[in-house]
């Protein structure tokens, strides 16, 4: 099919790739997601925005577990996210098949980013309309990475993407400190989302995922695992917020 053997993402005279700019605009229209790297773990969270009151918000799953030690959330187009979740999961399992170990977060990030970059240079395809936040733990400790539609990736201590990213990042700059513990980080993530949320924040309108590093209690050989908080757990956190 020669009609689509050329890339649809081409340079404009001022050196920009407009398709990527448009993709970032799609990300900017998406629900806000935040991520915070604590001293002993990582938290990522997102607002689950329902288009109508008839939607069963509690069934929406924006928090994806890629492998035991890595989780992912997004801002932007849901369907594009699902494709990347699938790719990431397959990549992770392939790594585990090869090395019998979970992939280090930066390795998975690089592979995912490389896929996203391909879609800016291949024939007949468009870039992904999502930015991703990956949270995970490996031999370097806790990790938080953002991956953009262009395939650029950034390691963060704390960040936000999506609709309210500018205000959220300002909020985080004031609140973040490197010695934060995971519990504080979850609390801060919720507060950050609350700043930008329209209407009431309930345990079903946000999705939170956490992973903690190997602590003294886990030194008997169990690995840290990424998990989505249940509605009940989120309710507990919300009850501590005035």
């Amino acid at each position, binding site marked *: 099919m020669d009609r689509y053997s050329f890339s649809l993402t081409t340079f404009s005279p001022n050196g920009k790739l407009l398709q990527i700019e448009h993709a970032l605009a799609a990300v900017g229209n998406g629900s806000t997601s935040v991520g915070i790297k604590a001293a002993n773990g990582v938290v990522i969270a997102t607002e689950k925005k329902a288009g109508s009151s008839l939607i069963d918000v509690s069934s929406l799953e924006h928090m994806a577990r890629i492998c035991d030690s890595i989780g992912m959330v997004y801002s932007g187009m849901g369907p594009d996210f699902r494709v990347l979740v699938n790719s990431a999961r397959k990549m992770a399992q392939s790594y585990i*098949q*090869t*090395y*019998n*170990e979970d992939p*280090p977060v930066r*390795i998975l990030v690089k592979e995912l980013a490389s896929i996203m970059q391909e879609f800016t240079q291949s024939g007949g395809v468009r870039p992904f309309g999502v930015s991703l936040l990956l949270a995970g733990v490996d*031999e370097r400790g806790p990790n938080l990475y953002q991956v953009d539609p262009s395939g650029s990736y950034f390691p963060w201590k704390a960040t936000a993407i999506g609709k309210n990213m500018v205000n959220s990042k300002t909020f985080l700059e004031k609140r973040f400190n490197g010695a934060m513990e995971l519990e504080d980080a979850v609390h801060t993530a919720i507060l950050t989302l609350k700043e930008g949320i329209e209407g009431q924040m309930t345990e079903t309108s946000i999705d939170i995922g956490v992973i903690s590093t190997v602590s003294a209690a886990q030194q008997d050989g169990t690995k840290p695992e990424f998990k989505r908080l249940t509605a009940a757990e989120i309710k507990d956190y919300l009850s501590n917020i005035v």
Partner: protein
Amino acid sequence: MDLAMQARPMEAPIEAHNHNRWSPYVDNGGTTLAIAGADYVLVASDTRQSDGYLINSRYSPKAFVLSNNAVLGTSGCSADSKRLYEVLEQRAQLYQHRHDRQISTPALAQLLSNTMYSRRMLPYYVFPVLAGIDAKGAGAAYSYDAVGNMQRVTGVCFGSASALIQPFLDNQVRFKNQRDADPNRLLTREEAFKIAVDAFTSATERDIYTGDYLEIFIVDAAGAHKEMRELKHD
């Protein structure tokens, strides 16, 4: 009526077999063993390379040190052994460049298994052992068949004298068939070294393909260290 045309019992059809068919495989003889300890692992292999009654070389090493200080001990086809080592070392270096650190022994072990299985339809004619230090600092030895089936072991022997040495290791390293022995006891380096040397000097007497020189690698947290002994040249 032609009586010679009476029915005979059915015979199996005669198949044509080409007994002159060229084989890509050759067994170059020789023997390799590995013993794992609490904080070290030992790999010992002879250096004779043969082809039937001919000796190709009295010194052709069968054990190779990888860049992460693990040792790959081999037996079977010499060409396949060398190529398997090269492929594995390439992958170890790629890993090092991508991950900014050495590959761990368990990860390398899994990688070797996959590498061998990828050639399921034309296998590496190699029976390798991979030896290194695991994440907890303990000695780890992994043994494989020619298509990559992997098992972590404390004492194993492959090659032309394996039938002579493996039972000896089962008894003296794994303490099998001894009523009052502690099967979980691991050998010290000195004990393992003596057992390796004795196993090979004895095997050299009985197995024509084993002999010439013995290379012994000891791998611990500090790295891989080699010693050599002479074996009988006959």
